């Protein structure tokens, strides 16, 4: 079995990728359906395939990168040259198939069609290699996929899709020439043997590593090792003394000592790092600005804030660092840590709404390319959404502590259910949402968290495999 075959097998051996395939197939299906619905020239509808090629290039390149970062692969015979063969092999096959769809491009003679198909193949390959190049050039570039909708919307706003389609159809020879040249450049670039040395044993967040808490912890420890040194001068003795003073007010066997200890461990870190505060402030400003132009869709963005915070939190429940607190003390400390997380979530959400009120007064209405841009204040009535979702996110996180992927999938499912419910029964729901129902939901949510937390603290294994 050749090295290339072994690496190609990863494409189906990694079961986590099957979910990615389902998503990609859905997108591809939607794109193709649009084409067959009524292929029209110059509408830019064919560009969806080129964008898909970029995504596939980005995702595919992560696989050999993960292998390269494993020290064992450095010594595997012939493995260093495998990267470019794998990248080009998948790229050529995918774009060959995708470019065949250009045969339905209307109003072209057979000769022209053949040229256009070649041009589309090469354009797809360029896009694919751009994605792969990005993956190799920038660490953990898969995150860029998150920005893709923004790029597509912005591109659509500037009619980039029609421009690109015209270039492919009207200048096939130019596209083919550029494609051959860029492919040659990437071929030699990917063949660089020094690459294997550079990636060897580098902590790399792979496809599904975000769901592997142990690995993420290890990677973050390695990455942060150098950075922590720079933060030495930010040690805040006053905060330290404050928390230790509070702890010392209580007896050694008192839960109060553990509550203050958990608060100290949970909440001081972000206070000490001014760059963390700065990034939060920037995020709040940006989000407030964007949400103001998104209208009702802004509501849905609120759903994700608590999930992001909760997913990245580590409660003292599962700490393997032994202090003298037992299970009861862990329970008390965890409640304090949960409370410490709810405060910043609420502050961020309230700050966004308040800022949007200010921005509404300052930002004037304007028209650009025929589109009216009016900044609207974020609906303060939606504040309850993150506050209601947060406890459920905590409860799910606690139940599936060892399986973060289940946590994420379940939370996404809940969010989509809420979105669909809101879309279908918006009127009925609006009538139902009042102070009583919100209070009831909050009580139910936090009651569930307390029950789950107590169960985990008292009845479950607290660390490792348990």
């Amino acid at each position, binding site marked *: 079995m050749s090295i290339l075959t072994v690496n190609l097998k990863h494409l189906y051996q990694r079961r986590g990728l099957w979910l990615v395939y389902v998503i990609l197939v859905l997108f591809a299906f939607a794109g193709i359906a649009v084409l067959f619905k009524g292929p029209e020239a110059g509408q830019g509808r064919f560009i969806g395939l080129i964008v898909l090629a970029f995504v596939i290039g980005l995702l595919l390149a992560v696989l050999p990168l993960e292998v390269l970062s494993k020290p064992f692969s450095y010594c595997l015979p012939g493995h260093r040259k495998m990267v470019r063969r794998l990248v080009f092999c998948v790229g050529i096959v995918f774009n060959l198939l995708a470019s065949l769809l250009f045969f339905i491009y209307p109003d072209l003679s057979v000769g022209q069609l053949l040229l256009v198909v070649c041009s589309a193949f090469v354009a797809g390959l360029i896009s694919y290699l751009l994605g792969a190049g990005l993956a190799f050039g920038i660490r953990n570039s898969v995150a860029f996929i998150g920005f893709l909708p923004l790029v597509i919307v912005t591109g659509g706003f500037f009619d980039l899709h029609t421009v690109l389609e015209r270039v492919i159809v009207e200048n096939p020879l130019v596209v083919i020439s550029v494609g051959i040249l860029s492919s040659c450049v990437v071929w030699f670039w990917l063949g660089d043997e020094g690459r294997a040395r550079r990636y060897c044993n580098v902590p790399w967040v792979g496809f599904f590593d975000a769901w592997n808490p142990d690995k993420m912890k290890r990677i973050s*420890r390695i990455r*942060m*090792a*150098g950075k*922590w*040194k720079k*933060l*030495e001068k930010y*040690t805040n003795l006053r905060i*330290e003394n404050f928390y*230790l003073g509070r*702890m*010392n007010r209580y007896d*050694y*066997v008192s839960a109060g*000592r*553990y509550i203050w*200890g958990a608060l*100290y*461990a949970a909440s*001081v*870190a972000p206070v*000490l*790092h001014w760059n963390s505060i700065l990034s939060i402030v920037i995020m709040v400003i940006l989000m407030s600005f964007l949400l103001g132009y998104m209208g009702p869709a802004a509501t849905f963005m609120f759903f994700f804030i608590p999930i992001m915070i909760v997913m990245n939190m580590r409660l003292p429940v599962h*700490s*393997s*660092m*032994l*202090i*003298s*607190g*037992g*299970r*009861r*003390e862990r329970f008390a400390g965890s409640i304090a840590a949960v409370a410490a997380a709810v405060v910043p979530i609420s502050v961020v959400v309230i700050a966004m709404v308040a800022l949007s009120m200010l921005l509404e007064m300052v930002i004037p209405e304007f028209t650009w390319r025929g589109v009216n841009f009016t900044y609207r204040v974020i609906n303060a009535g939606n504040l309850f959404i993150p506050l209601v979702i947060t406890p459920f996110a905590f409860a799910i996180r606690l139940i599936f502590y060892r399986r973060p992927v289940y946590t994420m999938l379940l939370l996404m499912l809940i969010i989509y259910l809420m979105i669909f419910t809101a879309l279908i029964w918006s009127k009925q729901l609006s009538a139902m949402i009042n102070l009583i129902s919100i209070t009831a939901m909050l009580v139910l949510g936090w009651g569930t968290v307390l029950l789950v937390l107590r169960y985990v603290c*008292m*009845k*479950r*294994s*607290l*660390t*490792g*495999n*348990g």
Partner: protein
Amino acid sequence: MNNEKPIVQMRKVCKRFGKIKALDDINLQIYPGRIIGLLGANGAGKSTLLRHIIGLYLEDEGQCVTFGCIAGKLGPAELGRIGYVHQEGELLDWMTVRQFIRYVSAYYPNWNRELEEKYIEDFEISTRARVGSLSPGQRQRLAILLAIGCEPELLILDEPAAALDPVARAQFLDLLLQIIQAENRTIIISSHILSDVEKVIDHAVIMKEGRILLDCSFDELRERFSLVRISALGKELPAELPFENILHCKRSDGQAILTVQDCPPEKLQEQAKSLDCWIEIETLPLEDIYKIVVSKKENVTGV
């Protein structure tokens, strides 16, 4: 018969992780004032057993009692008497070492500042560094300091020397011996570095696939297994040597090297005399004893 009261008692403890039986019918009693070596291959169940003692894991069956309290219900009063160095090395990375020591010490009424300072000096721990910026070896030293700083009656060390360099390991072993000199201190040490462990332990527990294969005093263990060198003084050695319980035999040019079990030296000497042989009896290193125990389960169980 031991008249002392055990500080840890495990009775028929079983623990499963899915289909894997991590602990299988564990019966173990740990008495004060001992250094117990918990030995076993990866996945033998050593860490799982240790985590049961401090109540991080709850048993599926059986019962684990530590300091007279069911392990799952241990509170600050009992846990304050236990020091634990864990495999994961989980510490609060954002704190400075000084801050972190201060934070952990705030949980213990009998924290020994003198010991802390001495250890910081001996092990060259930089108190101004961030915990997250420490090398694995330095983290391990810090974890050891935190575990011993509260002067625990029971010190549990789960692979404590894995990240230490040879000099630090030697210092660490000296430290263990110093700790044990204090009255009623008990240490449970799980390690793969058997050459280090055998310098300090006085009791051995060997585990395999979640079961305890052997639980006895280290002296007793060493007496049970011997390496015997036999050289013929005059004639050739007989084809079949008359010794009992030979586990391994290697012969060459009128010489034989035997590994024997449960054969007293006097008896060996006597038999050698009858064969007109010169005999030399040595104790086996722990590493060899361990290999014998885990490979020949049926011969050594039921100790």
